[in-house]
């Protein structure tokens, strides 16, 4: 069924399709409509789930962890400061190995108050052990929510589906919602091997000394590494069902490309228009869109960049005191490669500044010049 819906409502419909059983959330702009719609669905009986009203995002995540530990499929959504407040519980969810799925609507952190798009909120949660998927349009948001439950439940790790404030959250566009019967076949009910059970009581996550903690961490890392292939196989299975295939990265017009741009999220769609303009001018430029940030698609990126001469990474985020976060990660992934391209970083669109296609065209033209040596460029900043 095709509907013209906003990114926020797309998340709600994805959650409904996945037959989530427990939702605990606290409202924050621009995420509010996600939970508004879900609470409506629960109240109308369209979605058989418990909706738990909580007093903070920290509690929302705590409730989701508890629900998931009993074997219920649990979901929450948040943004910016709300995600920051959840931070402690994000680590907890990973350690407890509960496959909670969350939608985070990328929004910058205050002060000054700013409700617009920026990836620094979710990327600040890089080391919490959550899988992270950055979506480029509403269709991908819906598809990724459904896939995230399957992937996360297979590896017993929580996952974050990330969309852009306003560029997705408040933008209505056509979304194809797959038939419920198909989704049910794709995503069977969650039934974990280990769960809280009053008939077989155990303590979960109790005090564990150095003799075992170390191995438990190793197991999380192992699950993360294994999730790479699982994301691919689940993406393919979903593709067989809907015709829409997904991997960890997407290559756009990279054939024969000497220069590559790297982008993620909503900006990547605008970048595709920029690539089309450049290709019409016979420039050998392609785009790599990073969809999965955790696990980081090292091998895919190495392969995709093996023939490139120069790469420009566009970050709608910054690790203050260093540089763009995707930029750092990509450089580190390529460090041990014998042949590696020159890589330059571009900070763009912080706090919801529009990143226009001609700005992206200029980035590609800049890095193609041999004289270009600037490691970090602030695109369109009044400096």
């Amino acid at each position, binding site marked *: 069924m*095709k509907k*013209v819906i*906003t990114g926020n409502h797309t998340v709600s419909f994805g959650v409904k399709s996945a037959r989530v059983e427990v939702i605990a959330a606290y409202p924050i*702009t621009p995420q509010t409509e996600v939970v508004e719609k879900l609470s409506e669905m629960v109240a109308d009986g369209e979605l058989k789930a418990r909706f738990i009203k909580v007093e903070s995002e920290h509690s929302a995540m705590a409730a989701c962890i508890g629900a998931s530990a009993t074997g219920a499929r649990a979901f929450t959504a948040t943004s910016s400061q709300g995600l920051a407040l959840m931070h402690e519980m994000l680590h907890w969810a990973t350690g407890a190995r509960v496959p909670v799925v969350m939608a985070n609507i990328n929004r910058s952190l205050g002060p000054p108050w700013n*409700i*617009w798009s920026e990836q620094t909120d979710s990327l600040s949660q890089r080391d919490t052990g959550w899988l992270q998927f950055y979506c480029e*349009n509403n269709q991908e948001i819906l598809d990724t929510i459904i896939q995230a439950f399957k992937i996360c439940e297979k590896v017993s790790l929580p996952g974050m589906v990330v969309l*852009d*404030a*306003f*560029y997705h959250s*408040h*933008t*209505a*566009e*056509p979304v194809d919602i797959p038939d419920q019967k198909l989704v049910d076949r794709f995503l069977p009910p969650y039934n974990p091997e280990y769960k809280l059970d009053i008939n077989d009581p155990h303590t979960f996550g109790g005090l564990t000394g150095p003799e075992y903690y170390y191995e438990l961490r190793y197991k999380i890392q192992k699950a993360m590494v294994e999730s790479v292939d699982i994301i691919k196989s689940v993406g393919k299975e979903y593709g067989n069902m809907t015709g829409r295939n997904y991997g960890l990265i997407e290559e756009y017009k990279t054939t024969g490309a000497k220069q590559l741009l790297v982008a993620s999220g*909503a*900006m990547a*769609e*605008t970048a*595709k*228009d920029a690539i089309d303009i450049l290709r019409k001018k016979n420039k050998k430029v392609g785009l790599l869109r990073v969809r999965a940030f955790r696990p980081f698609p090292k091998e895919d990126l190495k392969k995709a960049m093996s023939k490139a001469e120069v790469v420009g990474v566009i970050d709608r985020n910054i690790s203050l005191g260093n540089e763009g976060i995707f930029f750092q990660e990509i450089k580190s992934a390529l460090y041990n490669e014998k042949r590696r391209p020159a890589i330059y970083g571009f900070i763009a669109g912080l706090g*919801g500044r*529009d*990143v*226009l*296609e001609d700005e992206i065209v200029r980035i590609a033209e800049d890095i193609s010049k041999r004289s270009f040596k600037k490691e970090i460029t602030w695109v369109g900043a009044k400096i």
Partner: protein
Amino acid sequence: MKEIIFYGRGGQGAVIASRLLAAAAFKEGKSVQSFPFFGVERRGAPVTAYTRLSDTKIRKRVPIKTPDYVIVLDPTLLENIDVTKGLKKEGHIIINTKVPQSNFPFSKRFKVFTFDAAAIASKHKLGSKSAPIANTSLLGAFSKFTGEIGIDSLTESIAEGVAVKTEENVKAAKEAYEKAR
């Protein structure tokens, strides 16, 4: 690609109108996109909403800078907002007002349609007497003036997308379509 900007005030249904138009064009097989000005909205404050209609997939994710059409839901906004900003040379402006188009100085540079959508909205008891909600009526007029959207897909979209006074809204759009010229 056709780009449309809606100017209204919070509560007048500009955002809803932009979505209804997108959903209607989607029914006609178009690729569509609809979004409000990215900001904080309040009742009474100026609101801007955008709709893109295209025969090919829309990937642009930035506000509309050079519209083909501008739809003004509230003529009092004309005092503070330059609705001709970025408007393409051959662009049209549609204003919800009783005042004839020759009263607007920009009618010399652009094609301007004026239409008393508020009267039709009032007749169908949409909104209050002092503040009728004319978004669906104005969409009906837009359909007639521009031909960018068929009245049948528009009324279908209204019937599906408007939860309150659905029938009245459909009737208002149809009446506006018939009366507009």
